């Protein structure tokens, strides 16, 4: 608990960064099959960290451990430690899973608006179903959140239509809005643009840029250009191991590991 959370970035300029989440020796299994091997990584506050790597390398499994969603699959196991502001999220004495998930929000690969709810209800879902009375009026919160997610102008006249009536890109921004509504500190994005067209992708990337002032963002992506565009840090995963973790520009211009170089130059994967 008294862990030093100030970390010094290994860069020329010696910039001080605050570590928001830190992962130590994280391993994860699906039944007998090990999907992650001893991952160690620091996720810095108000930065975007991209996780890249070929399909099946454990990227999604990794971030699904950061909000403990991995454990909900039957037969799944996990070992190691994940600290959020210096507290171990797996420690049952200090942290319960519901509170954790309110601090670490998540957006999935495929847009998942709740089909029985209107756009308005989708945004309010996290607030209403948590059971605590929201601070201030719900209408105002919903409006403000939708503005934050750059969706307000497109949906303000159809707030009471079903969530799935929106286009794919709008649905994904609705899901981001829904995640923002619970006021998380960290946002996990699991390939948020892989099902979207380039224009919707650009809108979401723009949104990520805006959001990082207030949130710590971790994004899993297939798309290396996207990682290069949005991320401050990039981690390269391969076969369940983290091969390299560096400032994004370095990963793409001067990778230390041969395998990283092969991947980012398109020689495999």
């Amino acid at each position: 608990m008294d862990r030093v959370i100030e970390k010094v970035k290994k860069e020329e300029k010696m910039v001080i960064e605050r570590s928001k989440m830190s992962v130590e020796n994280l391993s994860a299994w699906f039944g007998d099959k090990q999907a992650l091997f001893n991952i160690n990584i620091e996720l810095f506050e108000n930065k975007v960290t991209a996780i890249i790597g070929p399909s099946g390398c454990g990227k999604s499994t990794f971030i699904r451990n950061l909000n403990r969603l991995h454990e909900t699959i039957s037969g799944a196991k996990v070992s190691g430690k994940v600290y959020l502001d210096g507290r171990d999220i797996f420690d049952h004495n200090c942290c319960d899973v519901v509170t954790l998930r309110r601090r670490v929000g998540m957006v999935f690969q495929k847009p998942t608006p709740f089909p029985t709810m209107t756009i308005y209800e989708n945004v309010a879902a996290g607030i209403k179903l948590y059971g605590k009375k929201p601070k201030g009026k719900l209408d105002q919160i919903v409006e403000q959140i939708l503005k934050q997610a750059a969706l307000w102008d497109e949906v303000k006249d159809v707030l009471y239509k079903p969530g799935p009536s929106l286009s794919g890109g709008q649905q994904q921004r609705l899901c981001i809005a829904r995640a923002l509504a619970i006021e998380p500190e960290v946002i996990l994005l699991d390939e948020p643009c892989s099902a979207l067209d380039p224009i919707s992708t650009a809108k979401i990337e723009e949104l990520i840029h805006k959001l990082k002032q207030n949130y710590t963002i971790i994004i899993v992506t297939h798309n290396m250009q996207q990682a290069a565009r949005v991320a401050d840090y990039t981690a390269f995963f391969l076969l369940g191991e983290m091969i390299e973790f560096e400032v994004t520009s370095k990963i793409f211009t001067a990778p230390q590991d041969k395998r990283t170089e092969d991947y980012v130059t398109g020689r495999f994967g």
Partner: protein
Amino acid sequence: MENNWTQEVRKRKLIEKIFLGTVLSGTLIAIVPLVLVLGYVFIKGFSALDFNFFTQLPAPVGEPGGGMGNAIVGTFIIVGLSCLVGLPIGIFGGIWLALYGQGKRGFFIRYAADVLSSIPSIVIGIFAYVLLVATLKHFSALAGGFALGVIMIPTVTRTTEELVKMVPRTLYEAGLALGIPEWKVILKIVFRTAWAGIFTGIMLSVARIMGETAPLLFTAFNSMYWNFRIDEPMASMTVQIYNYAISPFADWNAKAWAGSLTLVMIVLGITIVVRKFSRRVSYG
């Protein structure tokens, strides 16, 4: 060559016509009994129907007039009671099977539900008789409702299970990821998404038990009076139809037809409304 070709086409067209004819006649033969039953019930029943039939008590033999008002109300009360028994068990059981029923226990419960659904309804009536009539020493609407509720359980369970399973796991995970407690995710998101389909299943099962006679014969028994007390014998349409139909009096036989028509119309009405309702529903 040319001749061969046209012959081939002619042969194919003939085969097509034969098949189409077979399928069509099969469909017609299947519809004929339905039309005959409905038509016959309608013709026989309609003449004996009047406003009094729905509002008045059965008249004694030989006295003209009278109705089945108490039996119509009784059927609804008994079906309501059976919903109280069958729906909670069926719905919660179905949710459990869908979400946690992968293991041995799930297999066993699923198997038990399938066996239960194949037990003849009269046997379930005997079960209710032994449990609630023999012990309490008198027939009651409660025993009838219980018997019909037990009949509902397996259908409601399996319908709920199938429909909850159809809700994509991503919605469940999306709910959890918002920091919503699991039980609320299950009830307010997963179950709510499946609800329209489950409701259809429930209404169809209600329509089915409405037509049950055997389990009511020695549970709810019958009554010639208005009765709203569930701890006493209560009239139901099916039992009343049965009694009227086997009686030697022409007037009562006519009343049985009128009762059949009423029951068929109610069940048909439920089915049609449910069809309309379920067509509006779609999964996201």
